[in-house]
C-alpha cells in the first residue's frame, strides 16, 4: 500500500512561498493515499498557469496540457483508459476564462473524473492581471481603475450545467479539503472541487484572512441539504458563493460511462485487427 512519500517527486514547485497551492498539493497527496491508490494508477492532467504545474509536482502519471484544455484531455484519457484515476487541475484563468466552455460541457457530460480548480481571483504566472473571478472594483495591471466585469459564479454555473458533485475548500483547511477530495474521487461521475487558494503576491485583497473571515462551512448551516438543488442555489446566492464543504451531490444521475454503455463494454485498450466476421459485417453496408 502506497504512503505519502510514494507520491513525492522532490521537484521544488515554482510557486511563491505561502502560495495556497502547496496546501492543495498536500491535500491531494493525502487523499490519494487514503483512497489506496498506487502512483501508477493515477494520472494528473493540468492546464496552464501556476496551478498548471501541478502534474509535475506529484509522483504519478502527469500531463501538462495547453491553456484551458485540461478537461477535454482528461475526459478523452479517462474514456480510453477507464481503470486509471484521472484528476484534472487548473486555476480560475484556465477553467473560468479560456476553458470555461470546456468546464461547462465537462460538467454536463458527467464523465467519472475529478476537477480541482484553484481559485485565487487573479492571474499569477503572467504577473498580476485580472481574472474572470476577480471581484468588481479589483485593481490589477490590466484593470488599473478597478474591474468592471461581473465575476463568474463558479457554483451557479456548475449547478446550471447539471453538476452531480460540487465541493468547495480552502487552502487553510487541510483536513476538510482532504476529506472533500476523497469524497470527490469516490463520486461516480464528474466532481468539481473549487478551492480558494490565495495568491500572496498579486492579490492583496482576497487574502487568507479575507477568506477566513467570510467563508461559512455548510455544516454550520442548520438543515443544509446537499441533495436539494434549489435550496443549495439559494444558499450560494445568499452567501455570494463563499461556502465550504460538500455543497451539492446528485447520485441519481448516472455517469456518462453508464449511460453510453462504456461501463459495461469498453474495448478501447484493445487495439487489434477486427475479427474476420466483424470485418465482413461492416462490408455489408457498402454492397
Amino acid at each position: 500500500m502506497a504512503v505519502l512519500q510514494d507520491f513525492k517527486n522532490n521537484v521544488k514547485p515554482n510557486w511563491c512561498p505561502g502560495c495556497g497551492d502547496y496546501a492543495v498539493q498536500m491535500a491531494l497527496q493525502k487523499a490519494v493515499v487514503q483512497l489506496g491508490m498506487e502512483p501508477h494508477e493515477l494520472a494528473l492532467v493540468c492546464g496552464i498557469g501556476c496551478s498548471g504545474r501541478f502534474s509535475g509536482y506529484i509522483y504519478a502519471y502527469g500531463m501538462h496540457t495547453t491553456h484551458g484544455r485540461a478537461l477535454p484531455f482528461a475526459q478523452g484519457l479517462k474514456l480510453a483508459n477507464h481503470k486509471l484515476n484521472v484528476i484534472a487541475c487548473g486555476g480560475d484563468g484556465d477553467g473560468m476564462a479560456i476553458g470555461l466552455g470546456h468546464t461547462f460541457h465537462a460538467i454536463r457530460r458527467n464523465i467519472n473524473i475529478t476537477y480541482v480548480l484553484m481559485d485565487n481571483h487573479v492571474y499569477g504566472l503572467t504577473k498580476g492581471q485580472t481574472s474572470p473571478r476577480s471581484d468588481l472594483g479589483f485593481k490589477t495591471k490590466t484593470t488599473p481603475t478597478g474591474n468592471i466585469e461581473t465575476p463568474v459564479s463558479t457554483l451557479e454555473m456548475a449547478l446550471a450545467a447539471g453538476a452531480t458533485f460540487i465541493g468547495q475548500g480552502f487552502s487553510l483547511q487541510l483536513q476538510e479539503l482532504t476529506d472533500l477530495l476523497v469524497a470527490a474521487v469516490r463520486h461516480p461521475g464528474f466532481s468539481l472541487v473549487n478551492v480558494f487558494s490565495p495568491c500572496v503576491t498579486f492579490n492583496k485583497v482576497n487574502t487568507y484572512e479575507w477568506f477566513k473571515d467570510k467563508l461559512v462551512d455548510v455544516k454550520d448551516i442548520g438543515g443544509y441539504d446537499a441533495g436539494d438543488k434549489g435550496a443549495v442555489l439559494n444558499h450560494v446566492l445568499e452567501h455570494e458563493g463563499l461556502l465550504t464543504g460538500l455543497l451539492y451531490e446528485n447520485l441519481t444521475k448516472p455517469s456518462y460511462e453508464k449511460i453510453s454503455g462504456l461501463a459495461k463494454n469498453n474495448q478501447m485498450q484493445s487495439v487489434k485487427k477486427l475479427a474476420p466476421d466483424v470485418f465482413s459485417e461492416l462490408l455489408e453496408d457498402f454492397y
Partner: protein
Amino acid sequence: MKSREITWQAGGQQGEGLESLGEILASALNHLGYELYGFRQFSSRIKGGHTNYKLRIAAKAVGTIHKSCDLLIALDKDTMQNEALNIQEQGIILVDSILAQDYSGQARCVAIPFKDIAQKHGSQLQKNIAALGCTVAVLGLTEEDLEETLRKKFIAKGAEVVAENVAVLKAGIEYIKTEVPSLLGVLPLPELKHKEQHLFILGNEAMGFGALSAGAKFMAAYPITPASEVMEYMVKKARKLGGQMLQVEDEIAACTMATGAAYGGARAFTATSGPGLSLMSETIGLAAMTETPLVIVHSQRGGPSTGLPTKHEQSDVFAALYNTHGDTAKIVLSPSTIEEGFYDTFEAFNLAEEYQCPVIVLADLQLSLGKQTMLIPEYDKMEIRRGNIVEASSLPPIKAPEYFPRYSVAQTDGISGRIIPGTPNGICLGTGLEHDESGRPTEAKDMRIKQTEKRLQKMKTFLANYKKALAVDAPYSEADALVIGMTSTRSCIAEVVEILRQEGKKINHVQVRLLLPFPAKELEQYIRQAKKIIVVEHNATAQLAGLIRMHIEQCPHLENILQYDGDIMYTEQLLASCKEVL
C-alpha cells in the same frame, strides 16, 4: 467514349428524394457489376435549393465525373436552365411535365408526368421512383435488376412500402414502353467483360471504415461539412465494438479529447474541415510536443474563414502543414482515391504510433463526398503496427522520485519507448513545455537542442522508410511534360494524360500522396525527366507548386493550372488548359 460508358444525372430541389434515387440506381448497378462514380452537388441549406446527383457508369474503374451527361432527369427549373446545357447532343432529357419546357438545346427532351405516375401507384412523393423506372427503361434494364435493391432500401418501413415502390418503378418502366417506346433501351450500358464484387462507398465512409479497421475506437468531433459523414459512420459502429464517438462542444475539445485518448493508449481521432482545423492547431502542437499519436482526417472545402462550405477546394495545404507554431514534427498524408482514403487512414494510425506524432489525412470535398466502386479491402494485407510501446513486463521496478525516460534521446532514429499510463513502473511526465528525458520542464540549452532534433529525426526516419509517398504513372524517361497533382484530381489528370498520350505526347503523371515530410528526392527524379512541369491544384496561390519549389533546389519553371471557383475539375477543361500550356 460513349459506347464505353454512360453518365446519368438527376437534378431537382433538395428534399425531393434525389439522393435516394441516385443511391438506389447505383446500388443496383453495383450488384450488376458495373464500375461507378457518383457525385452530388448541393448548397448549404436544410431543405430546398437545387441539388444534383451525377453517376458515371462504366465497365472499367472511373474516379471522377464529367461535365457532360447522356441521360438527364430534370425535376426542377434550375436543372433545365443549367445542367441541361451540358448534355451531349445525342443525349436525352426526361423532364417533369409540370415544368415549362423552354429547352432549346439539341438533345432529345421528353416530358414525363413523374408525379402522376407516382400518384397512380403510390404517392406523389415517390416521383423519384417513377423517374428511376423511366431511367431503367432507357438504360435497357428490367425491374428484376432493381427489385432486390428496392426491397433492401425500404424493408425497414414494411413490406407494403416495398410493394408500393416496386409498383411505382414498374409503372415508370411501363410508361416508357407504352408512351415513348422509341426511348426503350436507347442508351444501353457498356458490356461487362468480367464481373467482380465491389463496394460502393462514400469517401468519408471509406476513411471511417479505414479508421475502424485499424482499431480506432475513440472519436471526438464537431459537425462540419464536408467531414460529418466520418463521425456519423463512427457513431453507428463504434459503440458495438466497445468504443465511442462523442460530439463535443467545439473542435478544440474534439482534438484535445482525441489526443487525451491517444495518450491513454486508444487509437483515437477526429475529423474536420478548414474552420475546424484552424481551431485544432493548438492541440496539434501539443500532440507533436508530447509525441502523442493523434490522427486527424481533414477534408478541405473553400476557404478562408467559412468560405464555401459545400464547395470543393485544395487551399488548406499550407494550413495542414504549418498551422501550428514552432518546429512541429508531424505527418501529412494525401490520399488521391477513395481506396487510398481507406488505406491511408488505416495506415495513419500505424504511422502515428510508430513515429509518435500527429498524422493528418488531408482529403478534399470531392474525395470525401464522391462515391465510388472499390475492390474489397484485402483483409490479410491489413497489419496493425503499434511501434515502440514499453510493456510492464520489461520494466524494472522504480520508485518515487525516479521516472521512466519516456523522451530518451539515446535512439538514433529518434523514437523512444512510449508508456501507456497505468503501466506499473513506467511513471513519466508529459508537457507542452520543452522537457527533459522524463518529461520534466527544462530550458537547458543542451536538452532543448537534443529534444528538438529527436522529434525531427523521427520524420527523417519516417521519410526514409515510407514507400507510398507518390502515385506514379511515368513511362517516359524523356517526357514532354510531367503533370503533378494531389488528392482527388488523380482521376481527372489520369484521363487527360491518357488522351494526350493517344495524341502522341509523352506525358508523365505523379500524384503526391505525402505532403509532410515532403518527398523531394523522389519527386525530383521525375521533374528532371520532363521538359515541362505542370502543377494542377484547386487553389489560387499554387500551394503545392510552392512546396515543390521550397524543397527542390534549382527547381525548373513550374506551370500552374489553378482552379478556385468551388467546382470540381472536369476532364474537358483540364485537357484544354493542359493543351494551352503545352
